[in-house]
Each structure stands twice: as structure tokens, then as C-alpha cells.
């Protein structure tokens, strides 16, 4: 029982990380059907933004970087959309390959700009230490990430469900041509969607500087997991992504506690395959009348 309680906050904190990195994908993958393999590199860009800002603002880099990284990564996403992705709507699998090429280039670019070795972002002092709970301590950094994830989820939800921009985005995703002849400037909607999705990656990147390495390959460590969250959640379903992130986070933490990290990963994959047997389209399914 103690072990169970101990792992609970661990699972939650893993979930928060998964959720934060997957949120941007709910936008680009879920809303636009773009499988953006360079999402990981936008995360990396966010992390390096914090690193660069550190030279200016010192230990306040993490909080200051949040909005800046959103804009930096967002701008990168916007550029990618303008230069390449807009030729690819309706060919989601092609975007996967295209953006993989982009991700290779961005990684090498980071290596040339910042060097191959990892760099360090110093966390603000108020994020060091942790909250004692169930005999262990939950690091403040994790709580910060959790709060950040919850904040982003709420903001996105409000945006998608309540704003006219969000509705427009959904319309474009569901029927691009119809949206255009309904008077919607689909190009602008695409740009904005990609900007926000990529910007969220930037925010995730800043958060990740608190717990992991900051280097050119940062993105590659998270990208597969992030996609799995989106897949399990159901394409473009915010609620699904949240549930999936928490499900996978908890599963991961308990599986690792009772076995080991390697086996836990394998178990998680196995569970996902089994899960997709039951819910092939993820937790929250977008239903429609097939063929009609």
C-alpha cells in the first residue's frame, strides 16, 4: 500500500510531462492531421530558448522563457507550415516523412549552433526542493509542470470549444474545401493552428529543462511517447489526450516500480496494442456515419 501511494505522485508527474509534450500534437496532429516529427525539435527549441535567456535574466530564465519559447517555437512551426506543410494537406503520412527530414536538419543545426554537448538551464530557487507526501517528496519542479499542463489544457479547451477561431479550425480540419467556400480563410487558420501547436511544444521544452538534458537530441527522447499519448487518446481529442497521458503515466510508474525501466516500456507498448484492440480509435472516438 505504501509502495502504491509512493508511486502515485510519480505516475502523476510522468503523466504531466507526457501531457505537456503531447498537447501541441493534439493541435497539429489532431486538428490538422499533420504528423509532425519535428515536434520534438520544437520542444528542443523551447529548451534552448530558456538556455539563451539565462544569459540575460539569470535564474528567472524558466518563467520568463515560457511566453518567449511559445513564440519562438510557434514561429518555427509557422515557418514550417508556410514553406512546406501547406502543400501536404490530405496526405498525413507524407507529412510524417517530410517533418522527419526537417527534424534531422534542426538537430544538426542545434548541434552546430550550440554544440553537441548538453547545456544547463539553472532552475529558479523556488523550484528546487519539494513537497513531502506519503513519505517521499514531490519535487516542486514536477508540481510546476503539472500546473503548467493543467493550465495549457484549460486554455486549449476554451480556445477550441468556446472561441470562434477554434470552431473555424475544426471546420477547416473537417472539410477544407467546404470551409473555403464557406468564406473561411483556410490558409490563415492553418498558420494559426500550426503556430499554436508548435508554440505549445516550446512551452513543453522550457518545462523539460527542469528535469532532463538540454541538447540537440532532446526531442527524440519524447516524440514516440508523445505520439502514443495522442493515439491512445483519440485523434484530436483533448479529453482523450488528458486521460491517455494519465493512464500511460500511471501505468509506466507502476510497471517500472514492479519490474524495471526497460521492461516497463515494453509493457506499456504491449498494453497499448491490447488497448487499441478494444478501442481502435483511441479513448475518445470521433464517430461519423461511415461512407455517407
Amino acid at each position, binding site marked *: 500500500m505504501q509502495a502504491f501511494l509512493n508511486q502515485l505522485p510519480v505516475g502523476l508527474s510522468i503523466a504531466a510531462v507526457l501531457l505537456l509534450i503531447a498537447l501541441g500534437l493534439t493541435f497539429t496532429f489532431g486538428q490538422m492531421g499533420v504528423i509532425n516529427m519535428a515536434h520534438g525539435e520544437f520542444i528542443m527549441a523551447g529548451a534552448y530558448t530558456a538556455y539563451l535567456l539565462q544569459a540575460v535574466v539569470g535564474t528567472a530564465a524558466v518563467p520568463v522563457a515560457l511566453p518567449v519559447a511559445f513564440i519562438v517555437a510557434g514561429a518555427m512551426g509557422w515557418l514550417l507550415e508556410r514553406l512546406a506543410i501547406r502543400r501536404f494537406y490530405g496526405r498525413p503520412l507524407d507529412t510524417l516523412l517530410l517533418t522527419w527530414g526537417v527534424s534531422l536538419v534542426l538537430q544538426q543545426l542545434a548541434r552546430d549552433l550550440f554544440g553537441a554537448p548538453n547545456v544547463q538551464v539553472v532552475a529558479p530557487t523556488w523550484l528546487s526542493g519539494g513537497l513531502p507526501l506519503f513519505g517521499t517528496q514531490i519535487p516542486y519542479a514536477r508540481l510546476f509542470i503539472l500546473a503548467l499542463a493543467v493550465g495549457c489544457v484549460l486554455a486549449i479547451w476554451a480556445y477550441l470549444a468556446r472561441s470562434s477561431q477554434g470552431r473555424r479550425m475544426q471546420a477547416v480540419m473537417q472539410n477544407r474545401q467546404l470551409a473555403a467556400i464557406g468564406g473561411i480563410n483556410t490558409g490563415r487558420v492553418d498558420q494559426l493552428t500550426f503556430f499554436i501547436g508548435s508554440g505549445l511544444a516550446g512551452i513543453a521544452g522550457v518545462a523539460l529543462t527542469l528535469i532532463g538534458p538540454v541538447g540537440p537530441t532532446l526531442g527524440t527522447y519524447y516524440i514516440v511517447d508523445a505520439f502514443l499519448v495522442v493515439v491512445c487518446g483519440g485523434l484530436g481529442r483533448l479529453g482523450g489526450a488528458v486521460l491517455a497521458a494519465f493512464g500511460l503515466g500511471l501505468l509506466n510508474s507502476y510497471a517500472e516500480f514492479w519490474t524495471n525501466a526497460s521492461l516497463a516500456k515494453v509493457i506499456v507498448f504491449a498494453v497499448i496494442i491490447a488497448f487499441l484492440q478494444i478501442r481502435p480509435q483511441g479513448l475518445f472516438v470521433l464517430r461519423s*456515419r*461511415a*461512407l*455517407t
Partner: protein
Amino acid sequence: MSVNGGGPAAEPLLEIRDLSVVFDGFRALDGVDLTVAKGELRFLIGPNGAGKTTLVDVITGLTRPATGSVRFAGAELVGRREHEIVRMGVGRTFQTSVVFEELTVVENLDLAASFRRPLWSLLRRRKGVSDAVARALEVTGLTDLADSAAGTLSHGQRQWLEIGMLIAQEPRLLLLDEPVAGMSKEERARTGELLTRIAEEHTVIVIEHDMDFLRRHASVVTVLHEGKVLMEGSVDQVRNDPKVREVYLGRAAQPVPGEVG
């Protein structure tokens, strides 16, 4: 195979009993009973949203009913997978036609005609055009377009191709969902002739809103309304039924659009 349809008393090919479909609490079908005899040409009409397409969806395995049974030639269809139902001899078209855009018209038809072949024989290359395909090409008038990709067909041409594919399948029961929608008058007439020809040898259920078409080709009509069978009868009975006029035909039941005076 060609059992020529006898009278209404002929043995039933399709028996639907107490069929209900519920979508998120909304009853799209509500206790539908329907019997179609072998060789019959049955028309299914009803207001938009009455549940006609849903009924076809259930018969063909696309939608699971909440309750009820669909028996085809004595076998239960509910619970079977779509392709199994097709293999039992039930074919359908779709309200919005779906064809394989990258394949040519012939290839579309050929695939439709080939499902009974053993899988390994599919590994051989198609040589020439089989009889079933040739017939489908001829009756749909798509011979000229035989080698164009189906993706380049117009709306109406696609509808023809869909019907052609259905014919090539040689099913025992054909379900046609609004086959003449979007067709010009002459094409409607041609489709009607085609339908009459098919109905000589097959059992057919047609969903259609075009009353002119209905009057020309239908004998027995079933009217669906709000998920229930409102009535069943001849075209005239249906057209003169006040309830049908109210919910379906509208005030001016007589001058139905498309009728030439």
C-alpha cells in the same frame, strides 16, 4: 439462380422483425417490421431523416441495431461483418457514391465481380473483361469511359458506376439508396429501365424521393416515418394517404416536380 418472382405470397427473402436503432438516445429506427419476398421490387420512401438509409445500414452490417433481427434467406444477418453479408448475396449502393478513384472504371467493375474467386486466383492478372463486367459496362453505358480513372467521373457518372458495380456483384438482394438523385430526366428513365430489367431476376429494394420515378416503376411501397413503418401499399394508396401527404409529399401532392404535365 433466376427465380422469377411470383406474387406477394412468394417465400420471403428478407424478414426484418422489431428492428430498433438508437444513436445517443435518439431512436432512428423504432420497431420496424418488413418482409420482402423473393423477386420483389420494393420501394422505400419517407421524409428526410425517417431512417431509410439507417435501415439499409443495418441490413448490410454497417450499423448494429439495439434490438431486432434481420433474416436473409433464413440466415440471421445481425452480428455479421459487412463483407460476409455481401458474400451471402446482399449488395448495396450508397447515397453518396463511393468508387475507387485511382482504378479505372473496368477495374472497379472487375473487383466487384471477382469476390467469389478464391483468393489465390486473384494473384493472376486480369485478362480481358469478364462477362459480368461487360454486361455491367453495357447496361450502365460507361463503355466509352471504361479505361478512365473513376476519380475523373462526374457525380452522375459515379452513380452509374456504383450501380454497375452492384450488378457485377450479382447479388440476390440489391439495396439502392437514391440511385437517380442528381440525374437528368433522360438518365432517370434509363435507370428506371435498367431497374426493371434487374428486378426481373433479382430482389430489389430502392430508396427514392422522386415520385415520378416511383410512379413509373414501383408496385409495392413502404413508407417510413420517424423510424417506424407508416404504411405499406401500392403507389396510389400511398399517394392518396393523408398522413403520407402531410409528412412527406406536402400540400401540393399532385404537381410533383419533374412530372411533365
